[in-house]
């Protein structure tokens, strides 16, 4: 049974169909890449699945539960977490606070324990900080832990965003262009992290333009065109597909 599936998703903006009757299914433990030319509906697909915008039609199912139109926060609780294309850091917070924020179910996030400074809350904070610092170290941001995240470079922001989402220990991780604007060294690093997470059992869905990295990384490619599913399958097969070459690559492989 698939872990996450979208069935017949449609979303219109001012009469334009951003995605049109799109169905995609993702199995547990898969590493799936979503590609397509600009305006193919990749980000809209992500937004509809992750609850940022409700689809006009169709259903989204997570672990057999209908989660269509659920809020991003409730999906995050169910184990589906995403990043954003234009890296959205909480710029007015430090790197460490960015990561610590994401820790789920902290009792100190409720008024009374916060006011009473309960031992439970204090102990949790110790654990949260330890976990956050581990992640920050994993992504080699430890020298920046107390910097405001507005001071980070584009690549560092992508790393921070990844660290923040991992704080939630998600079942499904949806990455919207994690390599955009990132230098080749860092791209490889991020790809290695993603591969490692997937090896540990996390299901990952990636939108990406960076074809080379994507095709060598994923188990399966989903190609969208004008809001519809064009082709899906193993990267090698998909890239050989005539329709893909015509529609997306225009014969000019990057």
């Amino acid at each position, binding site marked *: 049974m698939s872990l996450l599936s979208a069935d017949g998703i449609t979303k219109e903006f001012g009469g334009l169909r951003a995605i049109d009757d799109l169905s995609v299914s993702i199995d547990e433990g898969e590493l799936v890449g979503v590609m397509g030319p600009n305006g193919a509906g990749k980000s809209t697909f992500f937004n509809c699945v992750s609850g940022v915008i409700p689809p006009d039609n169709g259903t989204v199912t997570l672990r057999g539960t209908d989660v269509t139109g659920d809020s991003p926060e409730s999906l995050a609780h169910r184990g589906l977490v995403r990043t954003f294309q234009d890296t*959205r850091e909480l710029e007015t917070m430090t790197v460490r606070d960015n990561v*610590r924020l994401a820790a789920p179910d902290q009792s100190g996030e409720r008024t009374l324990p916060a006011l009473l400074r309960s031992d439970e809350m204090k102990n949790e904070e110790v654990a949260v900080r330890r976990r956050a610092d581990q992640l920050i170290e994993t992504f080699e941001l430890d020298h920046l832990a107390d910097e405001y995240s507005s001071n980070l470079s584009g690549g560092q922001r992508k790393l921070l965003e990844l660290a923040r989402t991992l704080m939630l220990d998600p079942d499904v991780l949806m990455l919207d262009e994690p390599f955009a604007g990132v230098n080749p060294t860092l791209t490889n690093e991020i790809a290695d992290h993603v591969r490692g997470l997937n090896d540990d059992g996390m299901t990952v869905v990636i939108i990406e333009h960076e074809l080379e990295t994507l095709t060598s990384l994923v188990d399966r490619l989903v190609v969208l065109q004008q809001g519809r599913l064009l082709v899906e399958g193993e990267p090698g097969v998909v890239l050989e597909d005539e329709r893909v070459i015509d529609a997306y690559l225009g014969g000019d492989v990057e």
Partner: protein
Amino acid sequence: MSVRDRLPSGHGNTALLAGIGCLLVGGLFSLTPLQAELPSVLYVFVEVGITFAIYGMLVLGLDLQYGHTGLVNFGHVVFFAVGAYATAMVAAQDTFSGIGLGYPWPLALLVGVIAAALLGVVVSATSIRLRDDFLAIVTLATAEIFHSIFVNFEGIFGGNVGILGVPRPIAGLVGDADTRVVATLLVLGGVTLITLATVTRLTDAPYGRVLRAIRADELVTRSVGKSTITYKTQAFVYGAALAGLAGGLFALYNGAVAPGFFTIQVTVTVWIGMLLGGAANHRAVLAGLAIIMGLRLISRFGLGVTPVSGDVFAALRLVVVGLILVAVIRFRPAGIWGDPQELGVDR
């Protein structure tokens, strides 16, 4: 890595202890024959200090809403007014006009806080999703509506005269004028310090982290699993309840409430105090408020030595106050003690 460096509890606890201390000493003055003697020069300072303590609760609540959560509440005075009126009407014995129920004052104060909080619930339930500047307009309009309701429904709210005959618990215990103002300052100052300790605890905890994340980027905060509407509503209602508490205490100190005490000027004063000091920093907003209220002192003294009328002087003061607001936003958007990076402004 100790607990301490994660939860900077220092000034929160100091404030708590100082607040309790103030309350105890204030209680001593009120309940025992102990008397204070106040040089007449200081009298005006103590009076302005009392107003500062009351406005301090307003600015701390507003800072919770705007400084931490980013909610632009430009009708803060309405919660202050509703708290004051509710307290006054429940406690007042012989009102000139309007309703006075004559219940004991602690109950009245509680009703005042609850009434303001309930209004906060209603306003946030309807408007918290609006864009920042439109939330400002709705809250401002709400304040204007209530102002005109208080003026117009004379049978209930006493019209322009307001509600008279509100019991003054401290004045009722202390006959001597000097002792009375000192005790009042201590008690109200103590409550403000305890308020400071409370909001500090709240914002130092993970709770405050969520609030600041909402101000930074609400969608990201939602995508990491935080129910932002709940937090925004809570922050708004807590701020409203604090304003209600300030209003109730004001009614019980002043012995009367009237529309003239609750004009947009109050909102403007606490906003300028907050921005001047530096939003999102509790001590800074109190310091900023102290500067703005210090201007009142200057104008009180200045009025005595300059040859202009009170009306001219008041107008001059407001010109200065307005220009301070303009200048702070332009030249020091993070305020005097605020952190520009934390507030996301250029300088």
